[in-house]
């Protein structure tokens, strides 16, 4: 197991270096002088320009600048936002819980609906249920989620008036930011109605963000289940007279879920990309919206830091999924 772990980690190092190179090159590749860009439209005197260039280290060789950048990363220095003059890392982690809360809800929703849908479709292969649910999954998979979000707003917020249009909670409520997760904080605050309000704000964005992962998980669960159901040991179990529930629920399902776990893990990247769109539509104060705002404000250090941190998060989650896969599937671990 340790060798497996070390192997996985070693494999990540070149990728990590690549990610830092991409993020580092980002500001350097921008057309124009970074100092002029930071000065903005006010302009800058030549003396001040030279001073800033030296201060920021842009007059040194690129390799030195890069190494400096990487050393900074290890010390938690991801640069300073041009818009707020605050460290990028602090900004990121202030908004990160909102995205995690939304993303987690979406993944949980996608899993608890997607897996049963796929499994039942496989058991009832060729039935109306199979055709309808797999048709729906294909529609979900093809869904432009930014449009889907707008449609849900029109229907549930506009026509029915059930859910709010934007934000994480009604402005009425105020409580200290304990965990950063609005559902938990609102519950702990003890204010009546706060939790319901947080939940009502969360539901539409979660559904929107869950749509594509749900479709992918359902399709994957179905094909994994179909494959397992045709295995010899399933036939043996049936021949021995086990109840269909036991055969499917215990023998087949456990093995079918192994590849599905990887699929769920891979959805984290999809959810991160989806968060950019979902958070923009629902004005959800998370890192997706922050990235979009930073790009449109030309706040390049924030974009650079955000790019790096989001890629880092995806990388770590993928690593954890790989490890989990190794734990539950010994064949992978020992190959």
């Amino acid at each position, binding site marked *: 197991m340790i060798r497996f772990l070390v192997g996985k980690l070693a494999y990540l190092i*070149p990728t990590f270096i690549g990610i830092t190179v991409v993020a580092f090159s980002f500001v350097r590749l921008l057309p124009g002088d970074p100092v002029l860009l930071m000065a903005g439209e006010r302009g800058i005197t030549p003396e001040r320009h030279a001073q800033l260039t030296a201060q920021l280290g842009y007059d040194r060789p690129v390799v030195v600048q890069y190494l400096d950048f990487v050393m900074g990363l290890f010390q938690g220095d991801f640069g300073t936002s041009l818009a707020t003059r605050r460290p990028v890392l602090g900004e990121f982690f202030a908004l990160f819980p909102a995205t995690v809360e939304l993303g987690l809800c979406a993944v949980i929703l996608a899993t608890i609906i997607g897996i049963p849908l796929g499994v039942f479709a496989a058991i009832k292969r060729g039935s109306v249920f199979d055709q309808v649910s797999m048709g729906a999954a294909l529609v979900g998979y093809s869904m432009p989620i930014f449009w889907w979000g707008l449609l849900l707003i*029109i229907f549930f917020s506009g026509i029915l008036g059930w859910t709010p249009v934007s934000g994480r909670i009604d402005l009425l409520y105020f409580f200290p930011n304990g965990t950063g997760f609005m559902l938990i904080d609102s519950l702990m605050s003890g204010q009546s109605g706060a939790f319901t309000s947080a939940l009502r704000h969360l539901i539409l964005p979660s559904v929107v963000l869950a749509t594509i992962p749900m479709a992918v998980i359902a399709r994957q669960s179905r094909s994994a289940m179909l494959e397992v159901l045709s295995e010899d040991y399933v036939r043996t179990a049936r021949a021995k007279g086990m109840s269909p529930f036991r055969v499917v629920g215990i023998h087949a399902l456990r093995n079918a879920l192994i590849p599905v776990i990887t699929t769920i893990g891979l959805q984290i990247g999809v959810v991160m990309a989806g968060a*950019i*769109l979902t958070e923009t539509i629902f004005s959800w104060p998370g890192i997706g919206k922050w990235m979009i705002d930073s790009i*449109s404000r030309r706040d390049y250090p924030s*974009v650079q830091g955000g790019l790096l941190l989001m890629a880092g998060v995806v990388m770590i989650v993928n690593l954890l999924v790989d490890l989990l896969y190794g734990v539950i599937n010994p064949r992978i671990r020992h190959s």
Partner: protein
Amino acid sequence: MTTKPATTPGPLREFWFYFSENRGAVIGLCVFALLVFTAVFAPVLAPHDPVHQYREFFLTPPSWEEGGTSQFLLGTDAVGRDILSRLIFGAQQSLIIGVVVVTIALFGGIILGLVSGFFGGWVDAVIMRVMDVILAFPSLLLALVMVAILGPGLMNAMIAIAIVLQPHFARLTRAAVMAEKNKEYVMAARVSGAGKLRLMFKTILPNCVAPLIVQGTLSFSNAVLDAAALGFLGMGAQPPLPEWGTMLAEAREFILRAWWVVTFPGLAILITVLAINLVGDGLRDALDPKLKRS
């Protein structure tokens, strides 16, 4: 008595046999054909100029709604442009996006994958690590940042999306090349003196085509979806170009007042992407021998 000699059906025939068994795929193909028709004949089919602003008809509802007129079947947008005409011309944009992105990604991916799989060693290691890096970023985010560097616009958006989708082609080609390159027919070609380029492109590549076609189809729908998303975020096609994602971005502020400006462009995106994905599923089933008779 004469009996017809038993002929084996041609590869295209055989492919169509399996493909047409999948009803969804055939429907998808029909919708896609309709879309191509619409795009090609857009100037003839569209009732109005897609960028002309009818100043007396701001946010006119569709013709069947109260206040709608038969002049504008699907209504008009906030500056009085005919939505149906914009949708029809938008089909052109989406198809161009799909074709350009898949061509760039396919071309780049095939070259990188062939070189990587054929030469192996450090060349392979370097190329594949670079692909890993691209895949480590959430795709839309990377495309978004690239467009921020290159400057917003449809061409830059297409390049960015192609770069993001390209590693899938490189990996597929590499895997196929690795599987093929030690087979006997390649050895035979090598012994009879075929050069490296000939081996790569004429001997090996044609046998790696099936997975690439399937991936190409899926990438086509991804490209349409991602380009629309970039347009929606204001980083893709720029107004007044009638691109579906950009139309949605312009419509956002009217969602609670005028449902039609939001509904139709999104529906167009969904139908297009769905049709292509249906075709993709059918292609995968028809081209993948493992799944053929299951």
